[in-house]
């Protein structure tokens, strides 16, 4: 027999919910699926969860190597030429990549995987640029442990230096006597280069490898100017220490390199990085000097995620500021290839509970594509390459998850996917370029041309 009171309560509740649904007070209750005999917690196959956009055909129009890598003006040619020299093991042929970006790049996400793939295929010329200490606990560089104490850290995106001198990596480090930094490398390198500021009234820095002194830097000088000083590292050395013997001293970073043809892939991320940080807070002259010193073959500009929450800014100012940044790079290093790399998808939880793409992302990506084309730069559509709208929802539901619960920062698996997509796009472009060049040489030979 039915228990009367409980039965009446249940029936009345059901009637109330029907009424509330009918009057639109309550949201529709999806009670279907009671007889849906499908597993709910089972893993989503990775292939289904991460849906890369289809690769372009080999017969695409000239200049477009892959749908998500657009290079209508052949902007990547000088990068491809450098890669070819490196691949051919020409002595001293080092291909240098500077990858500017925001928080994922700060943690060497994406860039670490791209670096390891490039170095695996073209040779390893070293870790490249590393900051003096960790401005954010999140900062890192795969294969290098960095720690420092006593430094006043001024990232351009946060507690910026008043004179705008933020060096190559966007962070100024100043310290008095006693401050130090410690680097542990996973493998020995041949050389370390210190990036510092020379100016009147400055002090002295000691450099040690495996605990033994290898040099000193006098940072005092007649005027403010950039200083770069390289020291050979003893064979087998894997630990390096910097210590301020006499303060004050101002540094921007160090570079670890090897004497071998290969790729150096510099990861230059800023937490909260945006194009407007570069425009407003990077000293134009000093940044140009830093870029010129690096002699990069490719500069990757990978911003957009932090801008995506400012819809009005995107419509009114973003294109102009992106043009300004590209213009500064072109002026500083006119021979370098420039790649505008779009942000990844970014998710948000809608009121329905579904994870959807932040609406400004597709618009921002489109603006980047237009500006890149207009400025003669290559463009990599990360957003489409990783699967387009709703990717972060799929990544969040994937087992294992590929994105953090903020639907913005990729977890290691997600970062690797993006790193692989970038590497594949650039290497495919390179193979096409090389094949084209080899065909041309063969045709020239066939035609009897020298």
């Amino acid at each position, binding site marked *: 027999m039915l228990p009367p009171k409980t039965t009446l309560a249940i029936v*009345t509740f059901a*009637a*109330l919910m029907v009424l509330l649904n009918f009057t639109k007070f309550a949201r529709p209750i999806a009670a279907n699926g*009671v007889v849906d005999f499908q*597993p*709910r917690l089972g893993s989503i196959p990775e292939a289904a969860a991460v849906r890369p956009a289809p690769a372009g055909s080999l017969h695409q129009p000239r200049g477009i190597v892959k749908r998500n890598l657009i290079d209508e003006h052949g902007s990547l040619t000088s990068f491809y030429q450098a890669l070819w020299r490196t691949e051919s093991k020409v002595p001293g042929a080092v291909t240098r990549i500077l990858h500017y970006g925001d928080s994922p790049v700060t943690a060497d996400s994406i860039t670490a995987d791209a670096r390891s793939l490039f170095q695996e295929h073209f040779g390893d010329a070293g870790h490249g640029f590393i900051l003096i200490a960790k401005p954010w*606990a999140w900062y890192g560089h795969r294969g290098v442990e960095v720690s420092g104490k006593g430094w006043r850290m001024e990232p351009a995106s946060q507690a910026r230096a008043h004179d705008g001198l933020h060096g190559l990596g966007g962070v100024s480090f100043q310290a008095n006597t006693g401050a130090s930094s410690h680097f542990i490398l996973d493998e020995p390198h041949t050389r370390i280069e210190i990036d510092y500021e020379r100016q009147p009234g400055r002090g002295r820095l000691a450099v040690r490898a495996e605990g033994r002194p290898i040099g000193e830097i006098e940072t005092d000088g007649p005027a403010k100017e950039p200083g770069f000083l390289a020291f050979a590292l003893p064979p087998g050395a894997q630990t390096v220490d910097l210590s301020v013997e006499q303060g004050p001293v101002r540094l921007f970073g160090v570079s670890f390199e090897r004497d071998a043809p290969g790729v150096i892939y510099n990861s230059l991320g800023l937490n909260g990085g945006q194009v407007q940080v570069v425009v407003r807070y990077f000293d134009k002259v000093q940044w140009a000097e830093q870029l010129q010193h690096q002699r990069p073959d490719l500069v990757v500009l990978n911003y957009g995620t932090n801008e995506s929450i400012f819809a009005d800014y995107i419509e009114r100012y973003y294109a102009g500021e992106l043009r300004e940044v590209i213009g500064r790079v072109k002026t500083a290093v006119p021979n370098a290839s420039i790649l505008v790399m779009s942000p990844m998808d970014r998710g948000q*939880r809608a009121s329905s*509970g579904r994870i959807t793409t932040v609406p400004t992302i597709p618009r921002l990506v489109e603006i980047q594509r237009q500006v890149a084309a207009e400025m003669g730069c290559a463009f990599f559509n990360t957003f489409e390459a990783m699967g387009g709208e709703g990717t972060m929802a799929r990544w969040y539901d994937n087992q294992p998850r590929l994105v953090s619960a*903020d639907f913005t920062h990729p977890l290691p698996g997600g970062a690797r996917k993006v790193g692989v997509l970038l590497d594949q796009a650039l290497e495919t472009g390179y193979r096409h370029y090389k094949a084209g060049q080899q065909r041309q040489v063969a045709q020239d030979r066939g035609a009897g041309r020298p």
Partner: protein
Amino acid sequence: MLLSTPAYFVFLVGFFFAYWMARRYRFGGLAIVLFANYFFYARWDLIYLALIPLASSCDYLVGLALGRSNKPIVRRALVTASLALNLGLILSVKYLPHLPWLLPIGLSFYAFQALTYTLDIYRRDAEPTSSYLTYLASASFFPTTLAGPITRLANLIPQWSKREVLSPEEGSRALFLIGLGLVKKLVIADYLAEHLVNRVFDLPKLYSGAEVLTGVYGYAFQLYYDFSGYTDIALGSALLLGIKLPANFNRPYTAQNIADFWRRWHISFSNWLRDYLYFSLPGLRSRTKIFAYLNLVITMTLGGLWHGANWTFLIWGVWHGTGLAVQRWWQVLRGKRAEPAGKTSHVFASLVTFHFVLIGWIFFRAANVGTARDVLAQIFSGTISFANVTPAFAIVLAIAILAHFAPTRWYDGVVRLFSSAPYYAQAAAIAAATLAIQYAASTSPAPFIYSRF
């Protein structure tokens, strides 16, 4: 079919009507329960329709044989077979996750319950049931399938023989528990998870020390409200049929010491570990007192590993086992129970115990030891910023804390008020709670944390 989804409640209401209409015939009621159990399992995966009846039939036959045999060697062989079967189920699901017959839900709660039956009969603490249908319906009872509470079948089986109709008080309490469980899960636990906890444990280095610490506090309460919310729904679902399941929680963060914590947290699990594992370990009657301590560490380590093959669970188990052993040693040393006297001492003891548990939760929640280390490093980094802690999160966390520490008489008073209300007032209250859940819970329901164990 999660216990917090509309589909489950449609299923439950349909089952409620079918059960009570068929209940006048004992066979009819049990047949409906069994059908509902297997329907519930099949919703996860059809493979269970073969696996569960097969395993249950084996244990039923083992139980009958144990009841008829007095030969120690035969009895030992029978109970070993049951142990091998049920532990094999647990281990295969947990440690061989890539088998083709990958199962969407763990069977450990089923296996734990099934083992209480054969082990109790083996120890002569219970008699086997002669009714095959009763055993099948009890062993796979659907409210306990996903995450317990682990119910001794010796306590569950006799309840099917009761003839009385569900009393209005029991029915009201059942509805209240279900509503409360939904609020705990969907409004509090999922909110805390979605708005800080998951992020902090995904990438702790992205957040300040203060934010990470807030996230860890948030996780302690998320886990409690998630698991106790599930338990409330399970208890309420069973009570709608007049079945009383054991309590699983008793305000655990008010515990005065670590042993007290385990008397208040996941009670059915800690009782199971104590009764069927700790007391079975060798050396307890030995003159060497070390076994009393060592067995605590072994028991809790195995309890940790039951959650999964991960160093984090191992560390969590060892942490609690060591805590229990040190407390036992301290009690022996002082010659009395280490109960604090005075209100201040009580509060201090609760805080110390809570933070001991909190450190364990960091390992319990972190994806790996490296992440746990990062969480601890961030907490001790001393960086202070609350930029990622929204006011809404702070309010929900404050409500969660206050509700947990509220006096039990307040809770009892609310239950009495609800029970004494007329049916239409109860219906209106549940409808209001449903509306509140719809508007306050910003996410679709996440799986219950313990359903993966």
